[in-house]
């Protein structure tokens, strides 16, 4: 399974970013192999409509789970329609920390 996490920088040591569509990086972790791939988000400075476009990127990377702080209305709708679950991580830890919390079942589902 691929988990996509919004982050402030590349790699699993980077701090988690609370914003979904405007996160500087997306880190995709394959939970079977433990491999991580970091993507620079081209939408950080986009004028608007970032939510649905970010969802398309998660979908392209095969993510079925997203960990982030919060998602807007349009992004939530797209995630819901795309069958991608979103979990809230509000801590100040790293991507790896958030993933560990998720695996331990400590994260709440965001309403989509």
């Amino acid at each position, binding site marked *: 399974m691929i988990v996509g996490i919004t982050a402030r920088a590349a790699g699993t040591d980077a701090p988690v970013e609370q914003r979904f569509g405007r996160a500087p990086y997306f880190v995709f972790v394959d939970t079977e192999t433990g491999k991580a791939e970091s993507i620079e988000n081209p939408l950080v400075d*986009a004028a608007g*409509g970032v939510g649905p476009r970010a969802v398309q990127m998660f979908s392209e990377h095969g993510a079925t789970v997203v960990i982030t702080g919060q998602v807007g209305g349009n992004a939530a709708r797209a995630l819901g329609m795309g069958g991608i679950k979103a979990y809230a991580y509000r801590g100040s830890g790293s991507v790896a920390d958030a993933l560990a919390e998720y695996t331990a079942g400590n994260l709440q589902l965001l309403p989509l």
Partner: protein
Amino acid sequence: MKIAIASGKGGTGKSTVAANLACTLALSREVALVDCDVEEPNLHLFFPDSAEDVPVTTLVPEIDPALCTLCGECGKFCRFGALSVLKDRVLLFPELCHSCGGCSLVCPQGAIREVPRTIGRVACSCPLSRLTLVSGVLNEGEVMAPTVIRAAKMLAEGHPLILYDASPGIACPVIETLEGVDACILVTESTPFGLHDLRLAAEVVESTGIPAGVVINRSDGRDEETLDFCRERGLPILMTIPFSREIAAIQNRGGLICRDLPGWEERFADLFEAVVKIAGVNP
């Protein structure tokens, strides 16, 4: 002749000036008043009457799932985020679409065609014998204000004298409203905030090259800073409306001072003459 009434922010009494001017002019000639503040049109409140509605539509993509290969190109292209290509379908957010038509061009499968969608309406009425009121109304949640403004202006086109009440602020809807006008009335209040907003509005109008003048509303008599600014910018003061309980009372109940308060019909007639002068055209 076409006159726009604008202000840097809401609540300066812009619509009141527009309504009084229109009402005064309608006593002696044909006039069309266009409410271009399509997100919150309010001129109909001064002129209650039954209206004829014309829908305003814009084109949005429609995707044929039989042709679409979910390649993702359309979603990558749309910079407004109106399309999200998911694993099993393309999701459209019609209210984010700016009808640029680009997605149908980039789709390699020819799976996208454009279909009309209603985003608002233009309401037309004749509340006074010589006054035509045209109000643009943008539906809740829609973003394409300029399209509705264009439609409202188009419906008024051909009238010899047209007044446009612009939306407050200095964003695209105002630019759309100013397109093609002969003169612009900037409505302000003599407060520090009022001056700040007037400055922004004056800059926008200046950049369009449209002759403009200023109406100071709710003046407390201490307008020096505003007057200085106008002098500096070469903006004539077209009219000053003092702050008074009497005026406020009439306006609060949706009344028009040109009708309800002696002397104001003449002053609004003078305002029109002053605008004609700065516009330098035949009214």
